């Protein structure tokens, strides 16, 4: 039915729905006000950034059950800083990493946590996987008892439920708002942050603790799986095992770690005079719909372009693209193709990579890598990707920052790529805060 002004009753009925359209919700600005992290080369943002600028990697050899020595990124934060010994015994490594990073984020944010309404805090933690470590440990445990399942621990189920790391944060910190994990393979760190942005815009929570964590180095299955896939990195110099874009790269270094952010609506952050570290102005998650493990540069480019559209930016307005590149022969080339397509004609967009320092922190990767670049808003330095002895010609992007940091006039916009298995791509865009 249509009246004389061409206005249909159908349209009128849809008006309330249109008010909730994403374009409307984007009017609410979401800012980062705190970061807590542990990475293989730093347990605070300052330490981590310093090492990224000084070229200090954090990979070591660990003894992996059934496999012998493998390179891995290992964190050395003090878990007892925020957990009792009993909590540590009952909980998971992912939970400990998440709890440490969440406390550090709250401290960094300056939020008066004691008086904050805990019902209005949401916890959204990205994970690549969860439960492998605990299940492998328990199977190993009962192998010592002739596989008699009466020796299987009653802690198994609470340790392995998918919401575990986020749930451990809530138990430890007394948060009674929503919590869950976002399973998004190695795009999970970005996905956790994106979920937080959406929940803040919907008004579901007033403060979000969001990011990603990984405990994957305790799972032999992760390492053995990559090895069987021909994608486990190695090098005589262990700190060169992860070397994205180097011609001799031969695979991934698996790492543990985590980065949790405090995200708030801009008005709330301004009202408490928060130190605003950046504003999330755009994002996109899409799917390759093509292969279980092989990346798809066409869909990756599409993801980055859609994130730019979401932010209302052109490619040349992005100062820094942090690559997902994991040091696999094929994956790095595919991402470079996608970046060249989107940013190839953008002379002031610089490209870097963090996995060359810390390995692949899986579900934490996106969140950790963004954190390592956030200080460039202040210091105007782009940390390099290291370990490039011979640049692969197929990865020779014009503005790839290799081996040495690059001082630039300004860094105002960062695009953070994170991609994962089953063809999940994510791009998150953060801008230096300007009111």
């Amino acid at each position, binding site marked *: 039915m249509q009246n004389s002004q061409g206005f249909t009753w159908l349209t009128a009925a849809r008006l309330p729905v249109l008010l909730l359209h994403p374009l409307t919700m984007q009017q609410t600005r979401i800012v980062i006000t705190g970061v807590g992290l542990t990475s293989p080369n730093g347990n605070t943002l300052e330490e981590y950034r310093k090492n990224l600028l000084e070229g200090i990697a954090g990979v070591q050899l660990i003894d992996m059950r059934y496999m012998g020595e493998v390179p891995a990124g290992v964190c050395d934060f003090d878990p007892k800083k925020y957990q*009792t*010994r*009993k909590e540590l*015994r*009952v909980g998971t490594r992912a939970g400990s990493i998440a709890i440490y990073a969440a406390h550090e984020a709250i401290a960094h944010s300056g939020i008066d946590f004691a008086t904050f309404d805990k019902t209005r805090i949401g916890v959204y933690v990205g994970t690549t996987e969860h439960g492998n470590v605990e299940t492998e440990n328990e199977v190993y445990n009962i192998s010592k008892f002739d596989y008699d399942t*009466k*020796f299987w621990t*009653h802690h198994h189920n609470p340790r392995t439920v998918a919401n575990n790391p986020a749930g451990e944060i809530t138990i430890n910190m007394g948060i009674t708002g929503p919590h869950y994990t976002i399973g998004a393979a190695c795009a999970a760190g970005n996905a956790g942050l994106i979920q937080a942005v959406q929940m803040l815009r919907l008004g579901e929570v007033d403060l979000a603790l969001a990011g990603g964590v990984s405990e994957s180095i305790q799972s032999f299955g992760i390492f053995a799986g990559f090895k069987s896939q021909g994608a486990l990195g190695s090098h005589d110099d262990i700190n060169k095992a992860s070397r994205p874009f180097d011609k001799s790269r031969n695979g991934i270094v698996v790492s543990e770690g985590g980065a949790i952010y405090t995200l708030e609506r801009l008005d709330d952050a301004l009202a408490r005079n928060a130190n605003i570290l950046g504003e999330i102005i755009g994002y996109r998650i899409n799917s390759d719909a093509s292969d279980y493990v092989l990346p798809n540069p066409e869909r990756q480019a599409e993801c980055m372009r859609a994130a730019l559209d979401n932010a209302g930016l052109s490619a040349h307005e992005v100062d820094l693209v942090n690559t997902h590149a994991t040091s696999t022969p094929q994956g790095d080339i595919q991402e470079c193709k996608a970046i060249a397509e989107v940013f190839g004609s953008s002379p002031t967009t610089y490209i870097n990579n963090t996995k060359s320092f810390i390995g692949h922190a899986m579900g934490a990767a996106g969140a950790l890598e963004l954190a390592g670049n956030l200080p460039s808003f202040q210091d105007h330095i782009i940390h390099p990707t290291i370990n490039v002895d011979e640049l692969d010609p197929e990865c020779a992007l014009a503005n790839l920052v290799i081996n040495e940091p690059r001082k630039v006039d300004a860094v105002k916009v960062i695009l953070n790529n994170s991609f994962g298995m089953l063809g999940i791509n994510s791009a998150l865009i953060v801008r230096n805060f300007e009111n």
Partner: protein
Amino acid sequence: MTEDQVKQIVIDIINEIAPDEDTSGLKGEISLRDQMDLDSMDFLDIVMELRKQHGIEVPEADYPELASLDSCATYLTPKFNAK
């Protein structure tokens, strides 16, 4: 095995599963939960460690027998001595 030795075995297990608790002054006749921050999962841990470390089975119906150090000793000592 004496009841005091069985009590020490239970205390050693508690020290293992609840390492933040002070077990030095535990009173035998008072409920363990009234003297320490132990929950139901902790008691399941005690049952599991008795099974793993000592081959002692505690059926679910008998869990209340583990309420205090004294009741643990009364209940468990015959089981240890029957091994």
